[in-house]
């Protein structure tokens, strides 16, 4: 079957190409920063860790940050691909269904009302933000099962817009009630930050993320059919209702875990899927792995720029994603349509 061989060749090429990019980003990013460190000292076991500043910069300040970036970037990009396919809307993103606004509301409530004591070394802020996205998902899910024959993407989109606006309003209400110093903290949280400072947060987020990615890995053919329309998919024997639920829940879990780990980092979830499609085409067997790998690399690079390019104080990563990604995407579009 030459067609199948051709596809296999393209999958291998895509995974190898984007994989090499992601690997290079993961390896090089922890070596770069505002503080000069010597690799020989970083791995020198003869110096006690507590006295080894270079090792602490590498293992505490940089490595968890790079790992958080790769997880958050991959999750948001994959969630974006799934939402865009299922909602059949190129403007869909992890925020379309109100999930990241829900996650933000959870975090802002905890910050404003000082409920943020740490539980077993994990701050209550990410826990609350995950809970916020779970509540948003529960509402969206209830709507998706209320209809017998799959979900109308228009209804879901409208529900998402309404839910986003509602959570956004609650968020503003909470901030008005809160002290201005809490509001300041809440705004900083909303700008996104990957400086997690420990591996606990990364490991805690990794568990739901891997489960969701595994569920989505089984979906590419379904995504291809569904993006053509639910009727077309059903005629080809796809259980659209079931596939939709798996996709919605998995993409939502990815979004909730990503936002709880890094804050609501904009742009990655909506634009990375388009960048990847411009490069590898519309086949989801290529788009999904490419988005996961490119989303991770993209966020690592953005975070690297955020921490080195703006003086010692750095800049919120959320500002860099759009600053860098916007022009890059426009350039890709121009090149394509010229």
């Amino acid at each position, binding site marked *: 079957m030459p067609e199948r061989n051709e596809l296999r060749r393209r999958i291998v090429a895509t995974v190898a190409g984007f994989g090499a990019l992601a690997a290079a980003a993961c390896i090089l990013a922890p070596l770069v*920063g*505002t*503080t000069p460190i010597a690799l020989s000292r970083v791995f020198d076991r003869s110096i006690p*860790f*507590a*006295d*080894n*500043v270079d090792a*602490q*910069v590498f293992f*505490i*300040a*940089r490595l968890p*940050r790079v790992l958080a970036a790769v997880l958050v970037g991959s999750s948001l990009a994959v969630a974006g691909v799934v939402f865009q396919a299922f909602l059949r809307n190129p403007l869909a993103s992890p925020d379309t269904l109100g999930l990241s606004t829900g996650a933000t509301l959870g975090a802002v409530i905890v910050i404003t009302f*000082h409920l*943020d*004591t*740490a*539980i077993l*070394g*994990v*701050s*209550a*802020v990410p826990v609350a933000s995950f809970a916020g996205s779970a509540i948003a998902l529960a509402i969206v899910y209830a709507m998706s099962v209320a209809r017998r024959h799959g979900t109308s993407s228009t209804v879901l989109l409208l529900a998402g817009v309404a839910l986003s606006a509602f959570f956004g309003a609650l968020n503003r209400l909470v901030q*008005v009630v809160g*002290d*201005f*110093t*809490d509001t*300041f*903290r809440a705004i*900083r*949280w909303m700008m996104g*930050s990957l*400086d*997690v*400072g*420990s591996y606990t*947060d990364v490991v805690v987020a990794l568990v739901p993320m891997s489960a969701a990615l595994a569920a989505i890995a089984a979906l590419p053919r379904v995504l291809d059919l569904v993006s053509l329309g639910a009727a077309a998919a059903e005629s080809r024997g796809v259980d659209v209702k079931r596939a939709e639920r798996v996709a919605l829940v998995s993409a939502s879990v990815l979004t909730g875990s990503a936002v709880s780990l890094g804050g609501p980092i904009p742009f990655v979830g909506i634009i990375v899927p388009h960048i990847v499609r411009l490069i590898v085409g519309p086949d989801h067997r290529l788009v999904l792995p490419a988005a996961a790998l490119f989303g991770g690399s993209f966020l690592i690079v953005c975070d690297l720029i955020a*921490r080195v390019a703006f*003086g*010692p*104080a*750095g800049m*919120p990563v959320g500002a860099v994603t759009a600053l860098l990604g916007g022009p890059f995407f426009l350039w890709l579009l121009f090149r394509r349509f010229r």
Partner: protein
Amino acid sequence: MAVVPPIPLTRRLALAAALALCAVASIGAETRRVVSIIPATTEMLFAMGAGDRVVAVGSYDRFPPEVDRLPRVGALLDPNVERILSLKPGLVVLYGTQTDLRAQLERAGVPYYAYVHRGLPDITQTIRSLGARVGVDASANALADRIERQLSNIRARVADRRRPKTLLVFGREPGTLRNIEASGGVGFLHDMLETAGGDDVLADVKQQAVTMSTELVLARAPEVIVELRYARGDAAAASDLRAWGALASVPAVRNHKVFLLQGEEFVVPGPRVVAATERLARTLHPEAFAR
């Protein structure tokens, strides 16, 4: 388009004379009915003995306790113009960036005093000019003199001590080292730290607030970390300092020089700045205050 008829010369002269008289009268008279929506200026007004003229305060005003009895008229982001105007104020003390409120008060013909947070010297300067505006110059000047004298006493007391490299933190996610907010090289917190005998590790970053990465904490290696908390009922704050243990190579962590100071005076750049600076100085140089 409507054309305004020219006012006859005699009427114009009479009007000018009346306006001049009003201006002279208002300079001489004390301003009654002051609305102060910024906690720092409210504290200043009460400390200079003009508390009985304050008829309303902002949402965040908590000190002195007398303010609890006064009506609230919003704050920096949400001033309630309707309530402010209904109180018929003789002066509204607002923040310099509240341009909408300023325009509305100008239209309504209500005088205002625009205040902006800056460094430590600006606190006494504000007390003097606000006192003059309200008509209590003498007591305002006495208060400003006293604050300046007390601050220079603190400065003198720690003058011969070695100045530890200090990080002044005023916010982070509890239980973790995420989103560390620290005082940069400008503003009253920075000035307070320098007065209290500490060297600000972020003195070169010319921002009031710096969001610090863990890498920056490791790189700057502060010898002392002082965490300020001003929220009431923050009982878990002391045990929360353990989070710094993750950065074991930082001298402050290694030598157990991570301190917690709780109190609203650290966030309100008003007359209580002396108490705040002294607490900071006692933390950095306990031996200078030992008798």
